[in-house]
């Protein structure tokens, strides 16, 4: 194949933007992130085993912690926090549609014509 690009050397090309990459700094950051994830897991376990609360309340709290956990993974490990606007836009629409799927479906199955609900 008569490719016209130059053969790259083994030295990495910084294909995106930024500043030169320091492996050890990254590894240290990863350590903090991992500790954060462990804390989130521990917190969820603790909430789950709390006596005397409704499952609805506990589920809601656990999901909040899970959302935070997801934010950490997505934001830092997938570096979504430093991603470009286009990706954000796509994900924004996705979140809107998935929310619509949840909310509208559940609402639809709990809205009854007046006087027809059995219990």
């Amino acid at each position, binding site marked *: 194949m008569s*490719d*016209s*690009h130059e*053969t*790259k*050397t*083994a*030295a*990495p*090309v*910084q*294909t*995106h*933007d930024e500043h030169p*990459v*320091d*492996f050890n700094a*990254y*590894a240290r950051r*990863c350590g903090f*992130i*991992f500790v954060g*994830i*462990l804390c989130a*897991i521990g917190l*969820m*376990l603790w*909430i*789950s*085993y709390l006596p005397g609360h409704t*499952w609805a309340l*506990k*589920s809601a709290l*656990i*999901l909040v*912690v*899970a959302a935070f*956990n*997801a934010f950490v*993974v*997505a934001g830092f*490990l*997938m570096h979504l926090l430093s991603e*470009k606007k*286009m*990706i954000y836009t*796509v*994900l924004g*629409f*996705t*979140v809107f*549609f*998935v929310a619509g*799927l*949840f909310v509208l*479906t*559940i609402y639809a*199955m*709990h809205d009854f014509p007046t006087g027809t609900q059995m219990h």
Partner: protein
Amino acid sequence: MEIPYTVEARPDTGIYNAKVGIWLFLASEVMLFGGLFSAYVLLRVGAEPGTWPHGWQNVTLGTINTIVLALSAITTLLAWVACKVGQFGKFKFFHACTLLFALAFAVIHLNEYHEDLTHYEIHLTNGLIADGHMVENNLKEDYVIIEGRTVNDEKLLYDLRSQKVEESEIKIPRSEIKDMESYGPWHNTYMALDFTMTGLHLLHVVAGSVVIGYLWLFGRKMWETDPARFTNRVEVSGLFWHFVDLVWIFLFPVLYLT
């Protein structure tokens, strides 16, 4: 003929092609698992009060799996960083860890499936219900032995978190068995959701492992000719792997803890 922006970023979007591609694909995966989660919410909210199981899963194993997957997410990121700084040996090390963690996850999870499939709910002719793990089910013998308990109300089998379960070995003659069903996906909607959601997730774990394994085994050639392109491939496959971890971050609390 060369397709532009496979390696270098397009100036106005700031991204290279494969990254656009993988994020689009991940958006569709959000919708896929979102569909399953919406099914979960709907079926749980619509279930008869008191019939939704709690505590049916092994929380210890689930927690271990969560930690294992989180570790694999970290090693995935570090494998990519290693490529960025030009250290192929480190890349090999970290992705070897990723693959081992993936294997551990799969093994633990398959074990959990096995536990579910060997756990039986046996309706007896006298109206009682025996529930426990099958210890002996020799078809030549006229009895089965389970490690579990007997209850008189099926409702007691649902919420395991609110009871202390005393288990013992119980021998049941086959003549006393009305019917017997394992805790497979057919058992109730909770197990159906559990098997389906974790099963689909496990398929994604396998798929991700195949891709990462391929890069790990056969990556040296591209690393030597086009390291930037190889780094991008590692990044893109890493993004998929992180998504797989993300799904588990929600699956674990939803199925194990709530």
